């Protein structure tokens, strides 16, 4: 029935479309380059969102680049993927239809050399000036090895920020190295007095070539690469990658492993949210409130190490299941910790929310209006605090999430206070979910051994603490041929440019923290 819905949608978009149901939930449509723009325009009008746009070489034809436009429509469980194999080195731009397409197209231009001649922004994105013109590292013909960088950069090739001019406007450049212990990125504020009238974010300082790094590796070696995407999303990304491989290989993960994965994923969500909440309080000069959350967070890191051997639960998720089973003692210590943590968390929250200084700084600060959600494809707590009830765990359930009833949290004011409160309720939900998991933990093995991964292509979509993470994997001859990742931060970063408008520079840190954007997960 559900599939019928997506078929009907596609029929309305293109009556002569040939559909391929690659596997349950994934529908593919082949499309010619000149059909992309009209198709996307009608899709956008019918409420579709661009989830991801990626490029794969040799997907259909050897040596040719294919663009994969992954779309979803709220309320329909299936995703639609348009596959467009290019004849030459250029493609029409859809950045005027889906605003989020701009960054994808700039990225594909840098990494694959595919041009989008009618794009409104043709500046480089991922590869900064030091990379020579014509160097496109994700092409199969380019080996993954050091190259000669450009040392003298001609002035016309230097990065041009969008000019913002007018009486009283001046620029505040910040970064890439910031004052705190955080990741590098450049923020170019245009301000009048203290008020921000424009912000342009320049990222990708941490581009470490994750996608190319994965190529040629065996699937099981690549879990560590997925974990390196973003340290505090290790479980979510290892899971997203493993889901894709398990789909290709047809591996059924044992029930016990699915439950353990869910426990780890929710522990990760809790420590991530606690870190954000503490960070937000520090940024409004309320360290007393922050400390309680920091203490709880450290305890969770220690618990993680006791359960999995790593404070960030690295190596916990494996293809086909989990790395090791939990003993009775480990489960007992986890179930003792939870009710106590819950009580302390609730008490700490009460103290914080009773502070007028906190509320005064949080409320009406950094509002993300609902109108940005679909064009930028915002997900996770950022979207849920701005009136969008979307959560991969519920909309496209995977693993044990299909068995649990997940309360849908949603707030509508879209400000820092909404994001703080939403994360607080999600921490409570996650604590309860872990308790439920322990109570219903099935017996049995924790890993299914795979007997080799056949050639194929699949996508794993998971809900990390930050939102929807999409992992595309293509396997050829038992090795990774293409690994494309789009974390929630990649999309959500673009929202901060709108969230800060009209706010004062001094509120930028708390707005940034409330969005909890991963630089590493965006730059890859």
């Amino acid at each position, binding site marked *: 029935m559900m599939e019928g819905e997506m078929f009907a949608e596609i029929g309305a978009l293109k009556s002569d479309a040939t559909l391929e149901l690659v596997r349950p939930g994934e529908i593919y449509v082949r499309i010619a380059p000149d059909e992309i723009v009209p198709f996307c325009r009608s899709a956008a009008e019918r409420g579709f969102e661009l989830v991801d746009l990626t490029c794969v070489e040799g997907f259909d034809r050897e040596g040719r680049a294919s663009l994969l436009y992954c779309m979803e429509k709220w309320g329909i469980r299936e995703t639609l993927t348009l596959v467009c194999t290019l004849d030459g080195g250029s493609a029409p731009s859809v950045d005027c239809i889906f605003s989020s397409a701009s960054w994808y197209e700039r990225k594909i231009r840098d990494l694959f050399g595919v041009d989008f001649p009618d794009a409104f922004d043709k500046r480089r994105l991922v590869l900064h000036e030091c990379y020579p013109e014509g160097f496109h590292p994700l092409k199969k013909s380019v080996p993954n090895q050091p190259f000669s960088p450009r040392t003298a950069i001609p002035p016309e090739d230097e990065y041009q920020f969008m000019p913002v001019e007018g009486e009283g406007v001046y620029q505040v450049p910040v970064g890439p190295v910031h*004052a705190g212990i955080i990741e*590098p990125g450049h923020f170019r504020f245009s301000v009048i007095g203290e008020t921000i009238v424009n912000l342009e974010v320049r990222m990708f*300082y941490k*581009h*470490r070539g994750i996608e190319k790094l994965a190529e040629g590796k065996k699937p099981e070696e690549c879990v560590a690469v997925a974990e*390196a995407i*973003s*340290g505090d999303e290790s479980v979510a990304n290892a899971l997203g990658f493993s889901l894709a491989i398990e789909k290709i290989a047809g591996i059924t993960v044992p029930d016990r492993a699915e439950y353990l994965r869910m426990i780890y994923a929710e522990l990760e969500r809790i420590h991530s949210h606690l870190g954000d909440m503490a960070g937000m309080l520090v940024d409004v000069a309320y360290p007393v409130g922050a400390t309680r959350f*920091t203490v709880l967070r450290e305890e969770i890191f220690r618990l993680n190490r006791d359960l999995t051997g790593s404070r960030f639960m690295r190596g916990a998720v494996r293809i086909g299941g989990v790395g090791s089973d939990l003993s009775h003692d480990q489960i007992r210590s986890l179930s003792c910790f939870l009710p106590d943590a819950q009580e302390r968390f609730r008490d700490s929250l009460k103290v914080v929310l009773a502070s007028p200084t906190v509320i005064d700084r949080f409320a009406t600060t950094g509002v993300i209006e609902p109108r940005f959600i679909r064009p930028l494809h915002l997900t996770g707590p950022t979207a849920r605090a701005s009136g969008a009830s979307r959560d991969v765990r519920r909309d496209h359930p995977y693993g044990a999430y299909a068995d649990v009833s997940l309360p849908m949290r949603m707030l509508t004011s879209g400000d820092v206070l909404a994001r703080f409160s939403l994360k607080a309720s999600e921490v409570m939900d996650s604590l309860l979910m872990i308790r439920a998991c322990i109570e219903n933990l099935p017996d049995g093995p924790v890993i299914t051994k795979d007997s080799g991964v056949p050639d194929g292509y699949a996508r794993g979509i998971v809900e990390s603490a930050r939102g929807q993470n999409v992992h595309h994997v293509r396997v050829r001859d038992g090795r990774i041929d293409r690994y494309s990742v789009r974390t929630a931060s990649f999309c959500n970063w673009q929202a901060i440019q709108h969230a800060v408008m009209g706010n004062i520079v001094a509120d930028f840190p708390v707005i940034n923290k409330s969005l909890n954007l991963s630089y*590493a997960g965006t730059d890859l």
Partner: protein
Amino acid sequence: MLPVFKNIISRKTTEDISLHDPEFEAVGGDLKAAIDARMRRSLAIRELDSGSDNATEIEINLLSSPHYDVERFGISFVASPRHADLLLVTGAVTRNMEVAVKKTYEAMPAPKYVIAVGDDACDGGIYRGTYAVLGGVDAVLPVDLKIPGNPPEPIDILRGILALMTR
């Protein structure tokens, strides 16, 4: 008025959390003695992320949290390289960060130390020999000490700083 007055005279309550980690305290005590002797009681650290996966930043941040609270030992994390004695660098050095890494180091007053924190910072780790990175921190800066780990735990980082201060 009364609540303010009451607040002034009332006994301040602090929460006791069980933070007894004798191993960490021992390392911290030694470090304090070393910093007292060598750095005239204060070691100013600037953290620099040259391309890490952010896990190491979390661990370094936690050094200032109640469980560790390394300010007790004479350590402060400073906002500018101009105020720093020691640079803690995390991650393999990416091409896109090369200039910023060098400029940060150059901005520090001499004498200065550099510690590479984490496997990727030590020798490039999983990124060694790939297009996007130059290698470990020592490909760009003179490194005094390397702390391996993926990521190293807070106590490992403190041990590394102690090793630098006592050699």
